[in-house]
């Protein structure tokens, strides 16, 4: 509630200014989705072979958002690989209580930027590796 006690010229009214901005963003995404739908009309997503529990395909790959974990599991023991994402999520959940001091300088921004981009590059690298292998 501290933000509300600012000078008038620092703020815009929620309606209509902010709503208008949000509306334009939503409209843009909506048009994008219509274009995606048009592409879908021309080139349907398609389906693979029907599921057959008797036939194991050679290359099994999960969706891209699980691919980094899948790739990681090829090199570390299965139990560790299964526990690692849970620990990562617990760390994410607990993060506000670990890093709780208020920011004093812009330096903290840069530190967190470097940290998050490093993690992201690691995950993206694993995903691309998994996609190619």
């Amino acid at each position, binding site marked *: 509630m501290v933000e509300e006690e600012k000078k008038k010229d620092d703020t815009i009214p929620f309606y209509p200014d902010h709503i208008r901005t949000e509306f334009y963003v939503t409209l843009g995404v909506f048009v994008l989705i219509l274009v995606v739908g048009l592409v*879908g009309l021309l080139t349907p997503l398609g389906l693979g072979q029907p599921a057959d*529990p008797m036939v194991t395909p050679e290359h099994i790959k*999960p969706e891209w958002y699980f691919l980094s974990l899948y790739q990681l599991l090829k090199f570390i023991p299965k139990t560790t690989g299964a526990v690692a994402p849970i620990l990562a999520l617990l760390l994410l959940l607990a993060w506000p*209580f670990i890093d709780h001091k208020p920011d004093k300088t812009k330096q903290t921004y840069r530190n967190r930027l470097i940290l998050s981009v490093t993690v992201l590059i690691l995950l993206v690298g694993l995903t691309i590796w998994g996609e190619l292998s």
Partner: protein
Amino acid sequence: MFRSRYSFYVLLLIGTITLGLLGLFSQHGRAFDDLPSEDKTPQPSYATDLNTLTSNILSTSDIPERTEIPAPDKDPCLHCHIQGEFSNIWTPFGRWFLFGSMGLFFIFGVYRSASVWKNKTPWKPILHRAAEWVDIRYELSEPLSKALNKPVPKYATRWFYCLGGITGFLFVVQGISGIMLAFYYNPTIEAAYSSILYIETQVSFGSAVRFIHHWSANGMILMCIAHMMRVFIMGAYKTPRELNWISGVLLLILTLAFGFTGYLLPWDQRAFWATTVGSEIAGSIPVIGELALVFLRVGWNVTGQTLSRFYALHILVLPIFTLILMALHFMMIRRQGVARPM
């Protein structure tokens, strides 16, 4: 004439019903199957002459023969047989729509004039009246204007503040396209694959809806990650917004769970084996692993039961939790305001 407030409406109702009954029982527009049989015999008429004329000019064979149309002087419904007019459902529908809206417009004008004449006050727009009607009963205008006039800090209109909103909008898109798919999808091992094929090939715009559902799911995960990185880098999770961060992480988990459960539903080889491997990984968690595996697969193998369970999770359980958490997420933002950057 207008002794009570409602007599005008009563008159209007009586008039409308009378007109409707007149229309219902009038001879106009009755099909000519009811006519005596001698009228049905094909005979040279204006219509057939015109047909031969047009076929001579265009020399095409795809103009249908219209020998059954009687001569104009014997036609019970002349305007039904205007040459070249489309005779599908849309023509009468369009006619009803046009004349109906004209009639409604006329009735509205009469009502408006009568109201001004009776009340001796200028007419207020119909939307104002509706708003007033609601406001008198529920007193919404004060809290609503308070909510709408809440100041938003200017920095919150920078582009990277819209990522969370886009995620929310994509969730709405997922909901709508998902409902559209659920109309035709069949969560049994016999019919799942073929119902997806049916959506892809037979249903109007089915392939477009499925394409949108697939790609906006991917977009939603991307936007989740982008939004999360923005919040993380700017330290927007710090006191007093810890619970907002936690609800956000839970929403990310739910989004990934949506992806995992939705991936099985087409029941093709990729879906089946991805789920088999995925639940196997869940099964290798120490202590609770086997329980998780049995819960996910409903047994030791991926079967039709698994498909049913994933479908129920995908369309019932996960959306409910997501909606609750999203409401909390938004209410907390609303209450605490967007975090102030340095």
